[in-house]
């Protein structure tokens, strides 16, 4: 620890902190614009300048290392004049019209800093040079008139996401924020993760969907886990008047530190499917609106007559619902098939291995953050489960070695140092070869190269996904484990939906073939059912569906119960690497719509089943592939 004096106060600070960090730890506010806690300090805006005894000029506190015995003053006249000067310059450079900007009055850091300095007017007038507004992107609007050239967006696109789409063209006063080599943002390599929009201090980068819908300082915030895939990033869901306004990443989240992908940030607000608002019962061949009681009666009568019941639940449902579901249909009704809509494809094989070996072998996603070599098997981390892909991509300039093995088109492979072919079904042979390659003895040169890269790495990592889990037999998986052990590599198994892991822990993994089942109960939740599923259900005479939205599946069903979508229900989710995270309800459901949990309880009551609702114990009964911890 070192000691320094700031504004007369003696402060202890960690060795290696900057003056800004030391001041922040002591609750001394120093204004900044280009600084962001998640990014490497840049030192560009010059707003954070402070007086340091003995220094020739004012010094930027965001980059200046704090030293023992340093004496700093953050509020002298010189410093205050400098701040006003910098702000005046910024306002005069481009066109800052607060009047009709969506971030004005609360969400704009430039405006707030000017207010902090009690600025009532400008001493330098703007040039009135018009700048381009790029509205070509589906979700993002780039307005150069509001840009203060702080580079937070560019730095985030590189340092945090590893996509390097945003950059700067020209230099000096002609510097311009551009995408790729100056193409419209909508035609660029942008992957719509939206990190730039979230990190932009002004209204230069805004999200179309939520512009003018509500200020950050005035809406309701709901921090919780994302339910769009098995990574489980932490999000902040902004609502206003019971409406979804915007979704943002949580900067304070341990694993993801604010990162989200388009699936978690933008797409949920694009959902325009029709809501189911009342129960429906098929009468005379037609689905007609009914009361809950009528629907429950119809369920009781339909299920009671049936021989062979198949029960399927969506893995987007909270763990509490899945446990309840299993308790009702497996323990209570002893249904012939109780499984998830994923049918265990992304989990069954590995879960079985963990059970057989009685040990967990997968690691936390954290392992990716400082890995120096990564082997990705049959998984495109640019298309799905994107945030782990960010962890890898952003280290490529730092020297991480990437090996991608896939048989299909794989966008991540484009960034790999070594690209290998691995066709689905050939996993066992491939992994056997890879094992040999660790000593350079594989037949294929490419695999040998990969082996060499992995053996020379200090922190190697192997990532695999649904395709491998679905196609690898026990031999293949044993090879995989052997390779990981030989390398001392972290193994990361990417699963499917938000609660794939929970479904695996509950054993909801059986495949579904409509072999003469007379009835089916589908707890669909807000999932979009596949055509395949819908077709298979057509063969079953009596189908009950619990769903939030209309679909062909619900149109074919015999009884439909309207339930909540993700934002209207609270729940717990188990991520691919064992993190148990919560989501608190953010919206009130429409009148007459119940949560899946409430609907299941009603169904249980109607069928005279007393379910066990202690979900915590159920999740840990089976040896998991990765250790489970509450976050």
């Amino acid at each position, binding site marked *: 620890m070192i000691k320094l004096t700031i504004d007369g106060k003696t402060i202890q600070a960690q060795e290696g902190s900057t003056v800004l960090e030391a001041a922040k730890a002591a609750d001394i506010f120093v204004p900044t614009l280009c600084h962001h806690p998640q990014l490497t300090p840049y030192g560009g805006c*010059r707003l954070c300048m402070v007086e340091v005894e003995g220094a020739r000029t004012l010094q930027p506190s965001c980059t200046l290392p704090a030293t023992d015995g340093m004496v700093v003053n953050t509020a002298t006249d010189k410093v205050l004049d400098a701040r006003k000067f910098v702000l005046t310059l910024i306002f005069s450079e481009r066109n800052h019209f607060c009047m009709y900007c969506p971030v004005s009055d609360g969400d704009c850091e430039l405006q707030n800093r000017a207010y902090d300095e009690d600025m009532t007017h400008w001493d330098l007038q703007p040039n009135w040079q018009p700048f381009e507004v790029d509205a070509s992107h589906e979700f993002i609007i780039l307005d150069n008139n509001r840009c203060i050239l702080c580079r937070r967006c560019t730095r985030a696109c590189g340092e945090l996401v590893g996509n390097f789409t945003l950059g700067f063209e020209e230099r*000096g006063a002609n510097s311009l924020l551009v995408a790729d080599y100056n193409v419209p943002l909508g035609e660029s390599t942008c992957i719509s993760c939206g990190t730039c929009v979230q990190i932009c201090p002004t209204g230069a980068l805004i999200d179309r969907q939520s512009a003018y819908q509500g200020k950050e300082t005035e809406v309701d915030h709901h921090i919780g886990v994302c339910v769009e895939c098995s990574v489980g990033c932490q999000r902040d869901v902004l609502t206003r008047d019971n409406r979804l306004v915007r979704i943002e990443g949580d900067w304070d989240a341990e694993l993801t530190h604010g990162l989200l992908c388009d699936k978690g940030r933008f797409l949920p607000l694009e959902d325009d499917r029709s809501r189911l608002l009342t129960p429906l019962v098929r009468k005379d061949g037609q689905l007609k609106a009914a009361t809950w009681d009528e629907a429950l009666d119809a369920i009781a009568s339909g299920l009671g007559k049936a021989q062979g019941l198949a029960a399927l639940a969506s893995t987007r449902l909270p763990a509490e619902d899945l446990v309840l579901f299993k308790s009702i249909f497996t323990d209570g009704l002893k249904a012939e098939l109780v499984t998830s809509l994923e049918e265990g494809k992304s989990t069954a094989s590995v879960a079985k291995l963990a059970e057989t070996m009685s040990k967990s072998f997968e690691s936390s996603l954290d392992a990716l953050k400082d890995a120096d070599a990564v082997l990705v098997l049959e998984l495109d981390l640019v298309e799905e489960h994107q945030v782990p892909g960010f962890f890898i991509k952003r280290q490529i300039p730092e020297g991480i070695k990437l090996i991608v093995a896939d048989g299909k088109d794989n966008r991540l492979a484009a960034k790999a140092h070594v690209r290998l072919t691995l066709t689905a079904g050939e996993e066992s042979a491939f992994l056997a070869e890879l094992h040999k390659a660790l000593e350079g003895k594989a037949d294929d040169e490419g695999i040998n190269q990969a082996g060499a890269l992995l053996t020379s790495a200090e922190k190697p990592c192997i990532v695999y996904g649904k395709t491998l889990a679905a196609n690898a037999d026990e031999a293949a998986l044993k090879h995989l484990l052997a390779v990981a052990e030989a390398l001392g590599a972290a193994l990361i198994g990417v699963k499917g939906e938000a609660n794939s892991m929970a479904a695996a822990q509950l054993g909801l993994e059986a495949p579904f073939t409509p072999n003469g089942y007379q009835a089916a109960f589908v707890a669909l939740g807000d999932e979009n059912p596949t055509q395949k599923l819908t077709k298979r259900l057509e063969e079953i005479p009596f189908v009950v569906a619990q769903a939030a939205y209309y679909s062909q599946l619900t149109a074919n069903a015999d009884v439909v119960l309207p339930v909540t979508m993700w934002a209207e229900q609270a729940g717990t989710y188990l991520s691919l690497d064992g993190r148990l995270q919560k989501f608190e309800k953010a919206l009130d459901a429409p009148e007459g719509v119940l949560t899946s949990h409430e609907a299941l309880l009603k169904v249980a009551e109607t069928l005279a089943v007393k379910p066990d609702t202690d979900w915590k114990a159920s999740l840990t009964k089976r040896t998991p592939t990765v250790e489970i911890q509450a976050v």
Partner: protein
Amino acid sequence: MKATRSMVLVSSDPESLDMGALDVFNTLQQQIAAFGLEEEISLSMISDVSKKTQNPLVLVYPDAVIYGSVKPEDIPHIVEEHLYKGRVVAEKQISPYDLTGQIAWLSARKGTLPAENRIVLKNVGLIDPESIDDYIVNQGYEALGTVLQEMTPQETIAIIMNSGLRGRGGAGFPTGLKWQFVASTKNDKKYVICNADESEPGTFKDRLVLEGDPHAIIEAMMIAAYAVGADEGFVYIRGEYGLAISRMQKAIDQARAYGLLGENIFDTGFSFDLHIHAGAGAYICGEETALIESIEGNRGEPRARPPYPTTAGLWQKPTVVNNVETLANIPAIIRNGADWYKSIGTPSSPGTKVYTILGNVNVTGLIEVPMGITLREVISIYAKGMKDGASFKLAQTGGSSGSIIPASLQDTPMDFDSFSKAGVSLGSGALLIGDENVCVVDLAKVLLNFFRFESCGKCNPCRIGNKRAYETLVNISEGVGTLKDLDDLHMLSQQLYELSNCGLGQTAGSPLYDILAHFRAEVEAHVKLKVCPTGVCPMSGRRVYQIV
């Protein structure tokens, strides 16, 4: 260039002229010719000596002798006794202590006039730069051999430290100290970089070395690498220097072929390889950390410092960055010793400096003279006076970011400490001499345009401030400036210095500060009277708003 051995100055202020200074001058000219001394004695007028009661004055220097109340009839005696025979004429001599500070230092000056002394430019123009054999025949790679075979890295650093060599790129940082910092930073990978980005307008001293004596740089970089523990180096040459790049590449190839670059040089176990990195038209890449960023493939933007390149430079490894001229001194210092180097120049700034003479003078070009020469000597002796008999108005020393100095500072010795004490910057040694036809507003305008254009854009004060300053100067030159504009310019110059991220921004304000400090009346004429005293500015009455 041959130098004269004596300089004689005749005061020519209005009082002196009234008292017959012109006759004195003409008689001196005649007499010097009569004694056949024209080649050895340089004669000129000096207008800013104030000594009302003993005008006209005749100053002889470097003898530091001042004769007062001189009449034409005194001249033949003075010329014969003093200039021809070397004996001071005591009856006419007056004390220098009565004079203004500018001349008073003359009494401290003894010895011969600084004649050209070529160390950096020793081989330039005399050897074939494309022949490594030529270089070797002229003591080439001898210093390297000595260092690798007879000295330890610490001993090498010690010689450079003792020599007092200071960086010639503009900052004047002691080279030995810089090497010591890098040597003492523990890391198994270190680099040596030669900054050959020479983009300061008017400066082309490095070009001569790169084109005329490229092996000197290679040798120097290897000595530096050995001293600090580096095994790889880069020469960052500005892209526009095509000939320099090709000659340096050829030199590198030749050195490699001779085993003077690569593994195990001179069988001593020392390995070093050198690459050229060409710049792409950015002045800012002459700033050492922007240069490093450029080599790494990033935008040429200066980094936040600390840490400095000596601890975290290229690829975050300890790096030495030296200017071409600095490096060109190294082999000579090793060969001849630190004491030899200290005997040239001034105590605080030993050695020679290559000055670039530009502007309204009769002879422009490069000279290499011991540090400490004055501007007046440069103009009178080497540049052979102002062109067309014009009078000296201002000089800009040190390139575009240097200081604009008026005539009153002409006699300051041009070494790092004297200049810094006088509040002016020596920089890269470019000397732009302006006569009475130069408009200070126009000059500042041109300079600010250069900074505005070359600013990298990372920090707000430089990116926006330079553009605003330029626009303001344009408006002043169009006759629509206001007094508030002058206050704005003054404020911009202060804040640019205080807040900018690197030297470009920090010194961009110097021209603004200097013209307001030394030539305020001329600037105010543009604003108050809407007149450009030299007639240079357009003064169209049109206000400019957008300069893209």
